[in-house]
């Protein structure tokens, strides 16, 4: 076998009480792949996300990151293994400045860890790297604004900035364009494309335009099961997907 | 054996009194997510209002009027105080109720001074209902038991059999959904806060004559009430009942039996240090159960929070 997949799910299941949200999901996402997960509301996309990133632990099955089982680890331990995520509902540090938000994303990765003997303002490498990411997400001019008072689109961009700051190899974005206008969506998609260059990207998305634009492969999740996992063209053509879900979504889009 | 029976009854009275406070507090917590630090202060207000009203019209009308006034005061606090602070988050809410507790104590002293009030049980209940092995059991305590049980039954009926109760139960689990259904959740909140504080007020009127009506009465009971609902499981009415009785009996029995640490240590095979008066461990050797009785609830709470944060009966983690 070749090098292990970036993310590998094997027979993954999750129940809350008696309700089974994720049923026996098996999926492999290769390194460098841009993978999208789509599905109707309530299909379990966010739960699947939370299982992979350690917020929930699976009832059954395995999650492997670069070949290593991580399903019993805490979120921060998974993050330290090179996986970073964003959230469906904006999840930033509202009472800190934009600059500080990004810097928080960098601290662990730059080996500062729990240090209380380094002054963050006196670390040229830290400041430089923060500035770079700020310019990458085009927010250098908002540097000292409190994150809580940014516009929604800016907060989403900041969230992506925090997510990629640590330099993780695997980036998982949960509905990055939810609630955005067409122009904002276009801007964010461009941004994602730029900042995840040569990284593994997993994205949950509602907007089919975004999905087909961005993804190399698409998995369709319906009622907790993956009914298809293939290239955009094949997924679009699949009768099963059409029947279960895509038809209606595509009609809406049209 | 008869002493055990007496203690069971006494513990029941204490536990049920606690429950009258805890039921309101836990309702408020489950609905609004805020631990009302000032809950025992409303209990104190109940006692003082009860005393003042009883000097004009006697105990029985006071038993009805005082809780209503306390309830209205509580509803006003929710409407004009808590609702305002609510948007800042839970920590400021908690701080607000903490400040309120301080303020109410000062206000009570402002009006009634610092001395103990001569608040007495009504003449008609001033007799021993029965006695067990020479221990008189006052009729007033029987009355307390009946009131507390009555309140529990009424609460249970309202929560499970009426429309309002169903809305409250729904609001406990799905606050947003209930709001979407068109119910006026702020009004429900205000109502629950008012009723919760009125219950505390009622407990105050009833307890005032037995436990004393003085400015420190809220502090003495306040933190214990907290402990009780945390131990029982925040938001669980059954948990509140169980924990109230547990703590009522725990304190009663701890105060009743002079188990000494010396006996325990000797049983464990340790030898008493010869120089006990100067030994660093002298306090351990002279410790008795009644001495530590009142702090047992805190110990219980710390243990529960450390090992079972959802409380004995609670479902959700705090």
């Amino acid at each position, binding site marked *: 076998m070749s090098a292990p997949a970036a993310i590998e799910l094997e027979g993954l299941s999750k129940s809350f009480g008696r309700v089974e949200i994720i049923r026996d999901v098996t999926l492999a996402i290769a390194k460098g792949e841009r993978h999208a997960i789509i599905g109707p509301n309530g299909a379990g996309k966010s739960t699947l996300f939370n299982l992979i990133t350690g917020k929930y632990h699976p009832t059954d099955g395995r999650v492997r990151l670069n070949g290593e089982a991580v399903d019993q680890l805490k979120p921060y331990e998974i993050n330290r293994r090179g996986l970073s995520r964003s*959230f469906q509902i904006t*999840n930033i540090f509202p*009472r800190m400045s934009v600059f500080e938000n990004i810097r928080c994303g960098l601290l662990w990765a730059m080996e500062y860890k729990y*240090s209380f003997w380094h002054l963050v303002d006196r670390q040229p490498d830290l400041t430089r790297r923060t500035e770079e990411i700020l310019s990458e997400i085009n927010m250098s001019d908002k540097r000292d604004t409190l994150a809580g008072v940014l516009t929604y689109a800016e907060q989403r961009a900041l969230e992506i900035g925090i997510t990629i700051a640590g330099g993780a190899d695997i980036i998982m974005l949960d509905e990055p364009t939810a609630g955005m206008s067409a122009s904002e969506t276009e801007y964010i998609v461009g941004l994602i494309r730029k900042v995840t260059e040569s990284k593994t990207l997993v994205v949950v998305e509602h907007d089919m335009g975004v999905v087909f634009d961005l993804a190399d492969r698409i998995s369709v999740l319906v009622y907790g099961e993956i009914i298809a996992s293939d290239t955009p063209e094949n997924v679009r053509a699949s009768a099963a997907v059409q029947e279960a879900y895509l038809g209606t979504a595509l009609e809406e889009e049209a | 054996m008869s002493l055990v029976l007496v203690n069971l009854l006494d513990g029941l009275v204490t536990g049920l009194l606690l429950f009258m406070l805890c039921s309101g507090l836990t309702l408020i917590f489950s609905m609004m997510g805020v631990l009302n630090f000032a809950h025992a202060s409303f209990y104190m207000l109940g006692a003082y209002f009860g005393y003042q009203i009883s000097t004009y019209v006697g105990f029985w009308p006071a038993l009805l009027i005082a809780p209503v006034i306390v309830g209205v005061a509580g509803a006003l606090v929710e409407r004009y105080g808590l609702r305002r*602070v609510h948007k800042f988050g839970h920590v400021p809410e908690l*701080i*607000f109720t903490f*400040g309120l507790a301080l*303020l109410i104590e000062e206000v009570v002293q402002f009006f009634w001074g610092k001395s103990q009030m001569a608040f007495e049980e009504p003449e008609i209940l001033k007799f021993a209902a029965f006695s067990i092995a020479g221990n008189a059991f006052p009729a007033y305590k029987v009355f307390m038991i009946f009131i507390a049980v009555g309140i529990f039954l009424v609460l249970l009926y309202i929560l499970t059999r009426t429309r309002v109760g169903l809305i409250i139960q729904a609001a406990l689990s799905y606050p947003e959904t209930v709001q979407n259904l068109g119910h006026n959740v702020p009004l429900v909140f205000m109502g629950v806060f008012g009723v919760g504080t009125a219950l505390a007020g009622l407990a105050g009127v009833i307890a005032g004559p037995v436990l004393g009506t003085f400015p420190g009465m809220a502090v003495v009971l306040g933190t214990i009430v907290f402990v009780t609902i945390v131990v029982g499981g925040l938001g669980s009415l059954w948990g509140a009942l169980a924990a109230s009785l547990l703590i009522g009996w725990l304190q009663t029995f701890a105060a009743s039996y002079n188990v000494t640490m010396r006996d325990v240590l000797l049983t464990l095979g340790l030898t008493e240090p010869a120089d006990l008066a100067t030994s660093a461990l002298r306090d351990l050797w002279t410790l008795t159960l009644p001495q530590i009785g009142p702090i047992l609830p805190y110990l219980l709470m*710390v243990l529960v929070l450390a090992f079972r944060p959802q409380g004995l009966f609670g479902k959700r983690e705090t």
Partner: protein
Amino acid sequence: MSDALRPLAPWGVAALVLAVLPFIFASGAALTVMNQMAITIIFALAYNMLLGQGGMLSFGHAVYMGLGGFFCVHLMNWVEYDNLWLPLPLLPLFGGLFGLFFAMIVGTFSTRRAGTVFAMISLGVGELIAACSIIVVAFFGGEEGVSGDRTMGPTVFGLDFASQQEVYYLSAIWLMISAAAMYLYSRTPAGRMANAVRDNEERAEFLGYSQRKVRFMSFCASGFFAGIAGALFAINFEILTEENLNLATSGSVLLITFLGGAGFFIGPIIGAIVFTLLQTVLSLYTEIWQLYLGILFVATVMFFPSGLTGLIAIHFRPYHLGKISVLTKPYALIALPALGLALASASVLEIAFHARHAALGDEQMSLFGLSFNSHHPLPLIAALALGALCIWLLRRQLPSFREAWDEANYAGGPS
């Protein structure tokens, strides 16, 4: 001033003020009050490492200060009776270490969650230790506490610390050290992540940080500085009692921090100064000072949750916009009625209190230099009328004040 020195300027000014103060207020009582202020500042700053910077609400933080203090009194006694060699100026370090040690024990289980659970555990532990202080007489000395004598140690540069002045300078130096250390801590990765966890613990976890460990570190650091405050208390008062551990002390540090403004580093400093002055001065003038304090606290939580410092801070924007002068006139216009309202309210309370509680026959009371009969309705009516008049005046001024405020905060030119 060069840019490198600019951040040091406030520290220099603070050091200068601390050095000069004893020459202005030289009496023993003034020194005692200033010493108490220094202790309270350190304690409140330590408390704010939890509340303001870590988002942890504690109802039992007096425990760490108290334990540090108790330990130091015992150290002083060992110095006195058992020939332990320990110069007094180093004592706070040991107090801090003891506070740290105890915080590490409690922190292992209390920092698992923030919010209500943390608040309740802190309350429970606080009550437990306070109750133990009565039971464990060997360490806490029962209700009369433990006392010591600070002057028994080896002299340092010829100082034996018998005089208040020497103790003041010792406290002031430790205040500077502690405040600087706490400020610097907030600028380290651990301190920054404390803010991050406060704002959004979930996000912090997905950035590689364990929220529990971040909180644990803040908690321990806070315990350390609280212990230093306790040691200074021991040096100043030479006695520690149950009072140093109980809920009232824990509650007042919460009050101080919130009053000053938990969101700012200097908030607790301002809170501690204002609170100590209120406590010492207000209680000289009125019996119901605690009522005023309660009203002030509740009003702060309701209307100015960012505290006194927040009130000052909202003027920075107009200042930077160069529009602070826009506010001068409206402030002048509302100042008099606002002051009048405050005085009228206080008068109503004082008159009502006097009428209710003064000895029979003692109907004369004096207020603000006026002497009158509190049992006569006239003074009360006069106070109420003054209050009503001031409210009416305030309401009249309010629209134009609001307008001026908006204008002062508007970045563009005159609108």
